[in-house]
């Protein structure tokens, strides 16, 4: 049904349809809308987080008036956000930096990741609720798009806290581990450290943010180069120093200047290019399409499959909850029909039984009644017969008597006559 039709004419020539202009339309609209990005930084105090943020965004996000997380000493881990609006080349970006003062600074750091997880989840929850409303307005995206995790430059390997944190957060947010204050490591030490860290990350099956492959081979080569440098070792600075006539951001040591933007000194530019210039949109997309969807499907599955056994729910996850309710309704209707049919059957059967019993009982009574009637009739007949006999006998006897009487009468009459005639003396 779908075949490819190529209208590969150039602009402003005949035959040009014009939908090749769509990207420009998208560009225009996105600039008008403006962009949002939420970046989370996590790590112990003193690892240079605030300095790095300031360096990345070339601004005093953290300053005396708005101190960075390490300056805000907390008894427990807090999660705090600062929102700034920055403009460049006509493009407006609302940048939210989420930091976690107090992380890893206590003596007992068990569960210090929990406030972080809670924060990330609550932002997802806000978005889910906004998305699920009946009346939806514009939905501001405050979800955490990227989490920079600062590893102390011990040179040895990951600390248990590092491992624990990354394991717990890798399926909730894009985690990008960084080696902080990398200017305390020599290149060789740094190489070894990186290798060790990546080995441990793989061992613990931690999923850090992965750069997607593109269709462009050149881009892929670059991406592969970046991947080899992971985790990126960074240096930040708020200070601008003059080196060889150039003004650069750097850290001045007696033995030289560690330049922030020098690729041979550290991976700062790699991080900046990747995080801001090339992959910011992808970080947002992965957050939206993967991490948020995971959160959402878990949340909704818990809500709508309450109490239903899991063997049934597996197939139900691909349906919308409303469709699922529809199906449940249909199932119930069928169940009811079946139940109704069964009850009807039982009912009919019982009625039949009862009716049959009644019939039998009637027949029995009928029968008995008949019998009694016949009995009675027989007796009647008998009586009739007896009476007839009696009547006959009686009639005979009475007839006899009457004859005798007559005779007697005749006799007495004759005697009388004779008497009168004088025959009798």
């Amino acid at each position, binding site marked *: *049904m*779908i075949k*490819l*039709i190529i*209208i*590969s*004419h150039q602009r402003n020539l005949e*035959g040009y*349809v*014009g*939908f*090749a202009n769509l*990207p420009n*339309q*998208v*560009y*225009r*609209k*996105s600039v*008008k809308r403006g*962009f949002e990005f939420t970046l989370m930084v996590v790590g112990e105090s003193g690892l240079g987080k605030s300095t790095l943020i300031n360096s990345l965004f*070339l601004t*005093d996000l953290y300053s005396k008036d708005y101190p960075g997380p390490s300056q805000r000493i907390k008894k427990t881990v807090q999660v*705090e956000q600062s*929102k*700034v*609006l*920055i403009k*460049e080349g006509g*493009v407006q*970006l609302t940048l939210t930096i989420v930091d976690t003062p107090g992380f890893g600074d206590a003596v007992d750091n068990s569960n210090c990741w929990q406030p972080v997880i809670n924060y990330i989840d609550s932002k997802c929850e806000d978005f889910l609720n906004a998305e699920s409303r009946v009346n*939806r307005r514009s939905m501001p995206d405050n979800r955490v798009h990227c989490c920079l995790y600062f590893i102390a430059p011990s040179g040895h390997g990951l600390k248990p806290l590092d491992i624990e944190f990354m394991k717990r957060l890798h399926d909730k947010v894009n985690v990008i581990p960084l080696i902080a204050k990398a200017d305390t490591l020599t290149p060789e030490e740094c190489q070894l450290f990186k290798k060790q860290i990546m080995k441990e990350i793989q061992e613990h099956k931690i999923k850090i943010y992965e750069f997607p492959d593109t269709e462009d081979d050149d881009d892929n080569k670059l991406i592969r180069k970046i991947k080899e440098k992971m985790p990126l070792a960074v240096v930040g600075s708020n200070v601008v120093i003059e080196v060889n006539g150039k003004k650069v951001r750097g850290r001045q040591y007696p033995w030289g200047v560690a330049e922030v933007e020098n690729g041979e000194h550290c991976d700062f530019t790699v991080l*900046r290019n990747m995080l*801001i210039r090339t992959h910011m*949109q*992808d970080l947002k997309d992965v957050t939206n399409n993967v991490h948020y969807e995971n959160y*959402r*499907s878990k*949340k909704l*599955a818990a*809500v*709508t499959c309450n109490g239903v056994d899991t063997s049934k729910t597996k197939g139900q*996850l*691909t*349906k*919308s909850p409303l*469709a699922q309710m529809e199906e449940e309704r249909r199932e119930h209707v069928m169940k*009811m029909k079946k*139940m*109704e049919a069964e009850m009807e059957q039982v*009912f009919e059967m019982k*009625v039949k039984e009862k009716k049959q019993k009644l019939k039998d009982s*009637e027949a029995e*009574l009928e029968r008995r009644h008949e019998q009694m009637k016949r009995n*009675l009739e027989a*007796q009647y007949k008998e*009586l009739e017969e007896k009476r007839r006999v*009696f009547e006959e006998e009686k009639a005979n006897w009475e007839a006899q*008597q009457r004859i005798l009487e007559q005779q007697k009468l005749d*006799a007495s009459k004759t005697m009388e006559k004779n008497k009168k005639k004088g025959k009798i003396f």
Partner: protein
Amino acid sequence: AAEMRIAKMEGEGARAVPLAGHVGFDSMPDQLVNKSVNHGFCFNILCVGETGLGKSTLMDTLFNTKFEGEPTQHNQPGVTLKSNTYELQESNVRLKLTVVNTVGFGDQINKEDSYKSIVEFIDAQFEAYLQEELKIKRTLHSYHDTRIHACLYFIAPTGHSLKSLDLVTMKKLDSKVNIIPIIAKSDAISKSELAKFKIKITSELVSNGVQIYQFPTDDESVAEINSTMNSHLPFAVVGSTEEVKIGNKMVKARQYPWGTVQVENENHCDFVKLREMLIRVNMEDLREQTHTRHYELYRRCKLEEMGFKDTDPDSKPFSLQETYEAKRNEFMGELQKKEEEMRQMFVQRVKEKEAELKEAEKELHEKFDRLKKLHQDEKKKLEEKKKSLDDELNTFKQKKTAAELLQNQAQQAGGSTTLKRDKERKK
């Protein structure tokens, strides 16, 4: 003090800060554009209009392609929608274009229901998207969006006014889709008639409250051209895939004995304007409006219909969880109630039937009790008769015995008398 300030900041929203150099996020629009280009675009057009108004030809002309299809006959029993999807590519941009045609529109004698299948089709696409959006495990990112982004409404070039079918249909569609009315086969109308026709159409649309799509004027870069174009609506178009040589160029045209109508000549018709607005300038806006306005309206109505609310009776906002749970409980409660009702009904029937049968049983017993009583009475009568017979017998016996006794006595006496008599006689 620092904490308080930070808290205040969080409550206020973003504060603007200056940048000390080039950070590089001005590449964000490009990043976004690259992603969309890689992903590909999709656009869905619905063509509504009577058979023979040149809908297919116009699509072919707009997209410079011969799309498949035979011209339809006029004998369709109802309005059906036929949809075809094509993969187009222009320079590096891939577009999945779906063209939906209304087949048989306006051909029936009774056209009252003509709009229905169109509305149903549009709603069905919204519904499909809504279902996908509501799924627990969903893949919105790779979902093929079939929602109609633009509806080209073809008006017959009568030169007079809109037909009532047009008004009725457009009124039914204006809250569901972006309507772009066009005057079809406009080479049948002269320039002066056309101006009057456009004014008439526009005023009829306004007086009937039909909301047609307005090209957006909120973006400065396109505000001017869009507002100019808005004043040219409805566009009077001519479509043609035939090419005619004009000068030394081959142009799309329709050749008449009295001249040649050039499709892309802005003096001859508004085809170029339509193409400019529909494709080159506002395609993305049409998609956006469909998603943020028409779809949202559909979704809201659908959810409200099903009883979903954003706030409970006390106006406290519901969380998604609460809404779903409340819905589900209500639903389960309903089902249970139905079950109970059915059970109750059966219990009732059983009771009634039992009472009925008991009545019948009672009647039966009464009947037989009566018969029995009758029988008893008969029996009694019989006994009485028997008794009276027996009495009579006894009486008779007594009588007989008494009489015999008398007779014997008499006979003895009479015997002596007779004897005497006999003796006498003998003497």
